[in-house]
Each structure stands twice: as structure tokens, then as C-alpha cells.
């Protein structure tokens, strides 16, 4: 399995080097994409200095946690998002007869993946950690990688669930788009600004709040925590991520057993 995974990365990097201009353009897009989100936050908080007690420095850090988890997900598990496409054109049937686990087979399909977004995210996270005045001690250095990993697993779990739904409904573009939007736009702000229903949804149904809000509340020593949970729940991200991924994987296996294909 490890050997296969190594090959996967070798091909990815070689592909990226082969299409160099295209790679550079996509790297530029990653900068514009995250840059415009951060610039929007900056402009808004330039006019309105406080959002529920969070200022721009806090929000920049909040975005950094999400961005890093998201970039790590896109780097490692990008292929999962392609499952609906594979199901549609019948490519998925071919993966079913691979000797290794089907989800693993999906993940190791090479693309033009290069860890440019991840590098960008790590640099940005480093800068905002300093900028937001987060105390960097041994505990912080130990916890942050786990929190990031937890966020990555949460995103992976959601994508596995959406991919599984494609076994039945084939075209899930609409659903995928809406889930993506929920994640990217609703994680940008402290969830305290949302109605109680949305907060509960982002905490317990699709636990995106564990990607950045709860950990940020803990690291920034924010007094309030939405839903009255103690700030230390922020450190539970990896546990939430693993649990959620477990549920998602069980659903994936359930779907796989009933997978019929679209008839090619």
C-alpha cells in the first residue's frame, strides 16, 4: 500500500512539472482565491472593527486554521471528489476489481496535484499565529497538527458521504456544491453570529465548526463559546474527525454493497 502511495506522488509531481505554465496558473489561482477571501474579511473589519467580539486578527487566524486543514485535504484526498464523475462514466466499475480497498484506490488516482496550496496555507498560518498574538508554547505546537488533521478528516468524511450518495443518484453536483459552500463560507465567521439552528447544524450534523471555530476559540482564549460548550472542546477536533470519518466510511461500505453501476 505504501509503495502504491509513493508511486502516486511520484506521478503527481512529474505531471505538475510537465505542465509547468498550467501549474503556475493554478498556483496563482490558489493565491487569488484565498487572498480575496482574506481581503474581504479585511475590508469588512476595516469598516466594522468587531464581529461579535472578534477583530480582524482573530478572524485571520480563524481563516488560517480552516485554510490549512482544507489545503491538506485537497492535497491528500482530492480524488474523492471525483467519484460521482467516475460513477457516471463507468470508470468506477474498474476500481471495484482492484485488489486494494476501493476508497484507497480512489485516493491514489494521480492528478496534477502539487502541495502548493498546502505550502501557502502553512506560511499563512505561521504569519497569522504571530499576528493574532497566539501564545506559542509546547502545548500549542503539539496540539495544532492534531487540530489540522482533525479538520482534514472532517472534510474527508463529508466528501466520502457525498461520494456515496452518488452511488444511488449519480448526479450530485448540486448537493456537492451546496455542501462546499456551507463549508467554505460558513466557516469564515465565528459561528456565534448564526442562529441557534445553524450553530447546532455546524457543530453536530456537519461538524465544520470543529475545523476552525472551536479550536480558534480555545487558542485565542475567547470568553464566549457558541452553544455554551467549554472552549477546550476545540482540542477534540481529531476525535470528532475520526468518529465522523468512521461513520462516513461505514456508510461508504454500505453503499458499496448496494452499488449497481449505471449500466455501461
Amino acid at each position, binding site marked *: 500500500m505504501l509503495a502504491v502511495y509513493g508511486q502516486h506522488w511520484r506521478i503527481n509531481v512529474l505531471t505538475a512539472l510537465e505542465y509547468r505554465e498550467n501549474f503556475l496558473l493554478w498556483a496563482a489561482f490558489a493565491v*487569488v482565491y484565498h487572498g480575496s477571501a482574506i481581503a474581504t474579511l479585511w475590508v469588512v473589519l476595516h469598516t*466594522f472593527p468587531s464581529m*461579535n467580539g472578534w477583530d480582524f486578527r482573530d478572524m485571520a487566524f480563524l481563516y488560517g486554521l480552516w485554510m490549512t486543514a482544507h489545503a491538506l485535504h485537497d492535497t491528500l484526498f482530492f480524488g474523492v471528489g471525483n467519484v460521482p464523475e467516475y460513477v457516471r462514466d463507468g470508470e468506477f466499475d474498474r476500481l471495484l476489481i482492484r485488489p486494494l480497498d476501493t476508497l484507497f484506490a480512489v485516493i491514489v488516482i494521480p492528478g496534477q496535484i502539487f502541495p502548493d496550496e498546502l505550502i501557502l496555507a502553512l506560511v499563512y498560518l505561521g504569519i497569522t499565529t504571530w499576528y493574532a498574538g497566539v501564545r506559542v508554547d509546547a502545548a500549542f505546537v503539539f496540539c495544532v497538527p492534531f487540530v489540522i488533521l482533525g479538520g482534514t478528516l472532517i472534510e474527508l468524511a463529508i466528501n466520502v458521504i457525498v461520494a456515496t450518495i452518488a452511488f444511488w443518484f449519480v448526479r450530485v453536483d448540486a448537493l456537492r456544491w451546496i455542501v462546499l459552500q456551507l463549508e467554505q463560507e460558513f466557516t469564515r465567521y465565528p459561528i456565534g453570529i448564526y442562529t441557534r439552528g445553524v450553530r447546532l447544524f455546524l457543530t453536530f450534523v456537519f461538524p465544520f465548526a470543529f475545523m476552525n471555530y472551536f479550536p480558534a476559540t480555545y487558542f485565542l482564549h475567547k470568553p464566549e463559546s457558541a452553544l455554551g460548550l467549554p472552549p477546550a472542546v476545540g482540542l477534540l477536533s481529531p476525535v470528532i474527525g475520526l468518529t465522523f470519518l468512521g461513520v462516513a466510511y461505514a456508510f461508504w461500505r454500505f453503499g458499496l454493497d448496494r452499488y449497481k453501476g449505471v449500466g455501461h
Partner: protein
Amino acid sequence: MALAVRPPFRLEPYLEFGKKAIAREATYRFDVFTSIGSFALRIYLLRMVWVALYARNAAPHGLPLHAILTYSAVALLMGLVLDVDQVSSLYTKLHDGSIVSDFMRPISVPLYFFADGTGEVLFHASLIVPSLVLALFIVHIDVPSGGTLAAFALSFVLGYFVGFCINFILNCTAFWTLEIHAVQLIVTWLTDLLGGELVPLVFFPVALQHALFALPFAAMFSTPLLIYVGEIGPDRYASALGIQAIWLVVLALASVVIWRAGSRRIVVQGG
């Protein structure tokens, strides 16, 4: 091809192209639901964000909460039309080489893309009705006076054509590069930010505002929106619409030049 006798111009074929485009777009039901669903989600999100910001801070001059909610709602409704890349078929045809057969037809190829794009946009414009109804459940949208609405409509039309030219030019770059997606996404994101679709340009630092108002992105979203909410008053209509018109002329001329240069050097990959 240039030697062929040009048939007299007739409008009917282009009307047909437009109708065909409407029918084609209507077949993708899922995309329709996505647009409307995502529209509702965003308007709900924006309402919560602005309400939270206005609750804890002093309202900026000239834009009270109800005005900013109106601004956001109208911006999203405009996005249903302005965010459509109505010339994407040009890229597709350049990419798979089928553009060649279009050049052999007795039609004006740019006009064909214009008709096709207009049909596509008209279909998306029809989504404004259900979206507006949905939006009214979520936020209150102010309705300005008739004169303001007329100025807004004119400004919106100018903005639409500016957007059309930008999309046309972007798709034309495929004559040279064959691949345009990354560049296109970069421009889309810059338009969202610098055009004032997400945040009104009047919230930007004053030094930046002057530069931003002069860019074509502002001509697409910001100018019609600021007219709608009254931030640009009747005394400034002439200059605001004038800047839009200048951009339209510049970009339309650029489109013509790029199209001429591009269509002379068509490269078709393989067979």
C-alpha cells in the same frame, strides 16, 4: 473563406441560435436547483453577517442596515445573470476543434456567439423570479423611485455588456493558449472582490476606492448597485454611466481586435 460571397444579413438565424441556447440550458435541471439553492444559502449567510456587524458597530455613513441588505440581495440577483460565462462555448469549440465548421457557415461567427450567449443568459435571467420570491422570505429589499430604477436598469445593461466583452476576450485567449480555466477563475474571483459584489466598494479604504471605481470590474457590479441604494445620487448619474460607457467601448474594440487576430491563427489539436 474570405473569398466567399457574403450573403445579405438576416436576423432570423441568430434568433434561432438564441432559442436553441435557452432550450439547451433548460435541460440541466440540477444546475437550476443548485443556482437557486446556493443563492438562498448565501443570502441567508449575508443577512446574518451584516446583522452581526451592525449590531456591534456604528453604521457607516449613508448605508444603514436595510440598505446594505438590499445591496447584498440585489448583488446576488445580478450575479445570477452576470456570473454566467455566456461565451464558454467558444472555448469548448476552440478546444475540441469544432470551431472550424462554424467558420464554414454563412454566418458571422462572433454574432453567433453573441446570440447563443444571450439565449443562455435570458434563461438564467428567468431564475431571478423564483430567487427573488425566495429572497423576500429571507430579507426585506428596498424598492427605490422610478427614476432611480430606470438609471439602475440602464447601468445594469451597460454592466452586462462590459461583462460580456470581458468573457469574450477571456475565451478568445484560448486561440493562443488552448487552456483558460485558471485565468478565468482568477478573473471571476477578482471581479467578486474588486467589483463590489461581496462588499460595497465604499467600505474600502478611501485611497483604494478611487482606483477601484475606475476599473471595469466596478462597471459590472458596483455602479448599478450604488445607484440602486442611492449612494450614487442623480447628480452623479452622468459621470457614473459615462465611465461604464467608456469601458464598454474600450473592451468592445479590444474584443474586435483580439477576435480578428485570433481567428487568423486557428490551431486545431489533432483530428
